[in-house]
């Protein structure tokens, strides 16, 4: 059977071999030593016809509980928000998804303009002056921000709050090891960074303070109070933010952040088991030429017409090689497009409204779940759409979640996985998708699982 993606016919093959001047295909591979040639058939999964493949993939998919079959109260970095229907239509246009990085601006103005608009959106949300075209995810953006801060300040000490996403801290630890940077972790108090301990740890060797807001516990950090602590020693403030929350929360830029990063997944990007999502990276102007990744700039063509190009490329690996600001090349352009379309759809009013919905529904849920026998909210710090629920003494959150799955719910994150002192605590996320009746029923079912 002729393979459907391979147009070469037997006649084509003969004609082409003749043009090349060879008798057999083998002659094309004479440069590969026999000793390293592979003989036989590789032990890989067998080929399936189109229908069989669809069925097989459906079978695999059906083994997974998903947001359509289960009401999700699970967040911890990946959220079940409503994804406007138009987004998939836009990113399914193959002019976007089958294109490479826009190296040829004359035939890539669409992608370049989309990135330029994405950069503009990120600047508006974060209150920063400059944003790049995207990073792999929030965690790698966080680690790159730390490396940038160390380079810009020529200091090696990074102070990171324990309220930052554990996986972002783990990625940072991997990077910091490579660059020879010291990472100091600061404990939390009532769900937010302990400012007294933070003030104590900051000194003249500190490159940056890195915090997340809303933090991993969902609580909103007091960035305004943290900012002077680090700027008084001329270090940098790095903030990891939830971009959806920035429709209602004060921008880190206005509060004095030097670098703002985060993951754009809440902005219309499918959860997809945690990837691909889209990291974003924004900086204050003095750090512009130290940014990692692609950046699109506006310019004009020979006729004075507005157009867009990849710019400030002297920072990048294909020009600077080992002296580049980062090794990043491919990024997450198609997901940045998702986020842009989301923000275009939501607009000024929609972003405020979705933010308020998240606040109201999560606060309702916190009240409701806090009433369960033996349960209580763990912290009093203000929160956005996620909060920590202390379950009755001796509760095993993972076992409870296994029971909840059977009842049609994805329960909250088991904080004991990363914070031994928070064993028996569940991190509950409530987005605009959860209805009052789902929250009420979840409370009832959860109580039954305790």
């Amino acid at each position: 059977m002729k393979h459907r993606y391979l147009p070469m016919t037997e006649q084509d093959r003969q004609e082409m071999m003749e043009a090349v001047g060879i008798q057999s295909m083998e002659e094309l591979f004479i440069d590969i030593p026999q000793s390293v040639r592979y003989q036989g058939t590789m032990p890989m999964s067998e080929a399936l016809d189109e229908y069989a493949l669809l069925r097989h993939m459906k079978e695999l998919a059906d083994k997974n509980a998903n947001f359509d079959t289960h009401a999700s109260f699970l967040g911890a970095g990946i959220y079940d928000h409503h994804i406007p229907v138009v987004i998939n239509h836009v990113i399914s246009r193959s002019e976007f998804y089958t294109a490479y990085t826009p190296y040829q601006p004359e035939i890539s103005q669409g992608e370049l303009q989309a990135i330029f608009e994405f950069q503009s959106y990120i600047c508006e949300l974060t209150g920063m002056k400059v944003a790049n075209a995207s990073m792999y995810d929030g965690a790698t953006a966080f680690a790159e921000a730390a490396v940038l801060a160390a380079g810009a300040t020529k200091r090696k000490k990074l102070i990171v709050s324990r309220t930052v996403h554990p996986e972002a801290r783990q990625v940072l630890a991997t990077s910091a090891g490579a660059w020879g940077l010291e990472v100091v972790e600061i404990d939390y108090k009532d769900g937010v960074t302990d400012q007294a301990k933070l003030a104590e740890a900051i000194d003249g060797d500190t490159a940056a303070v890195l915090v997340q807001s809303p933090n991993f516990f969902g609580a909103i950090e007091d960035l305004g109070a943290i900012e002077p602590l680090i700027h008084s020693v001329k270090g940098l403030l790095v903030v990891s933010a939830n971009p959806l929350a920035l429709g209602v929360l004060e921008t880190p830029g206005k509060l004095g952040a030097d670098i703002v990063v985060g993951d754009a997944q809440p902005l219309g990007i499918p959860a997809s088991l945690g990837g691909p999502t889209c990291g974003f990276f924004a900086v204050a102007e003095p750090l512009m030429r130290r940014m990692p990744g692609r950046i699109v700039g506006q310019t004009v063509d020979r006729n004075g017409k507005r157009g867009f190009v990849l710019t400030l490329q002297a920072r990048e690996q294909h020009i600077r090689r080992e002296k580049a600001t980062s090794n990043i090349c491919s990024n997450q352009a198609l997901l940045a497009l998702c986020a842009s379309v989301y923000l275009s759809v939501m607009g000024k009013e929609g972003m405020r409204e979705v933010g308020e919905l998240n606040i109201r529904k999560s606060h309702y849920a916190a009240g409701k779940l806090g009433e369960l026998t033996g349960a209580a909210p763990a912290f009093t710090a203000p929160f956005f759409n996620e909060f920590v629920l202390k379950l009755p003494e001796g509760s095993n959150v993972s076992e409870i979640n296994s029971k909840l799955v059977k009842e049609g719910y994805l329960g909250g994150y088991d904080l004991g996985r990363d914070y031994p002192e928070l064993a028996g605590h569940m991190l509950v996320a409530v987005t605009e998708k959860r209805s009052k009746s789902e929250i009420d029923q979840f409370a009832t079912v959860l109580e039954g699982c305790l």
Partner: protein
Amino acid sequence: MKPEQSLIFELSRPGRSAYSLPVCDVPEEEAIDSLIPAGLLRSEPVLLPEVSEVDVIRHYTALSRRNFGVDNGFYPLGSCTMKYNPKINEDVARFPGLAKIHPYQPEESIQGALELMYTLQKDLAALTGMDAVSLQPAAGAHGEWTGLMMIRAYHESRGEKRTKVIVPDSSHGTNPASAAAAGLETVTIPSNAKGMVDLEALKAAVGSDTAALMLTNPSTLGLFETQIVEIAEIVHEAGGLLYYDGANSNAIMGITRPGDMGFDVVHLNLHKTMSTPHGGGGPGAGPVGVKSILIPFLPQPTVVQNEDNSFSLNYGGPESIGRVKAFYGNFGILVRAYAYIRTYGPDGLREVSENAVLNANYMMHRLAPYFEIPYPGVCKHEFVMSGRNLKQYGVRTLDVAKRLLDFGYHPPTVYFPLTVEECMMIEPTETESKETLDGFIETMIRIVKEAQETPEIVINAPHTTEISRLDETQAARKPVLNCSCG
């Protein structure tokens, strides 16, 4: 001349909207600032455009029409493997059971996803001749960094301080950049006259400080390193490891495997070899395969099969380099790559590589009379040629590239590798028909004639695109990086 394309911000009219949100069915008597202190709330509203849904669709449709993808036409961008992106892969990746799943769900509720990842790990290990695979890295460069971090950890575990990474002068820019990010230094060695690694230069470069040699094979010149066995011996004898940059794997599937050539680490670009779409610059996926000596250092987590045949995430031992990305890699891309492998199977993948190589050789032979081919003989999936014979007419390789736009082609990679003057690097891939290749070849011949007879047509190209050549100097000198519409 068509008018300028509006920015989405310029379409905004107060009072329009394109969103529809779930209703608020919980009590909303309390003001928001009684739930969250006013000092934490935005002092000014977020200034995003106010447009209708029709505006959104028209805007992005207009942008898409100003963009060129593989579905629009031939895209022989060397080292990027712009093959057809199968549609079934897009469909299956959108199945709710694969797209709407959370990384922290109980493992028993994501068994299908874990099974897919486990099988893909095994398939990629078989394809590359490696003992284990991590699906974590999000892109090729990310895979390089992950691999180098493992190499570094391996040497350190043996109490050896090895800091030098050797790369040929034709290597991808990501190689030295990844080495730097892994805290290692780069040593660049020249290629010999045949475009191959110069064994004498390699012997002189290796030593007790050699951490690794990074090699793309076939190289960015499209040439297979015929002395790969000797190269591996030289590096291994010096105590270094071999890193395989898998960007050019489309040439060798089922024909030879990095593991059999002597490589210890390999990354694959699933967005090249495994047909997942490039997305206008991502997302990609850069899984890393390793030989058994490096298994303890793999990033966390990998997927394992339990005795009861269920699947789990394994967070590895104390020697793991740790985490390189949140969650489990770009799963949505892994789904597409898996569907691709299941479409072809092992024999089909071999046919893919054979056809890719024949297509490249055919083009090279037909273009040889018109351009200088610096490395004649057989090429693999791509080849390089020089446009310096056109300089006498005042025509540069960049001009040829821009002229191709007028004929509906995406140009080849130009000015890379840096070792070839006025370089063009052409990779046709296996999914292009002979007619498509012939059409491109005829166009290239026509452009050569134009360069000789009417060079200004080429020099001033493109003539038919939305926009003419852009002022890149101004863009870099006075950066305008956002619209400041807010």
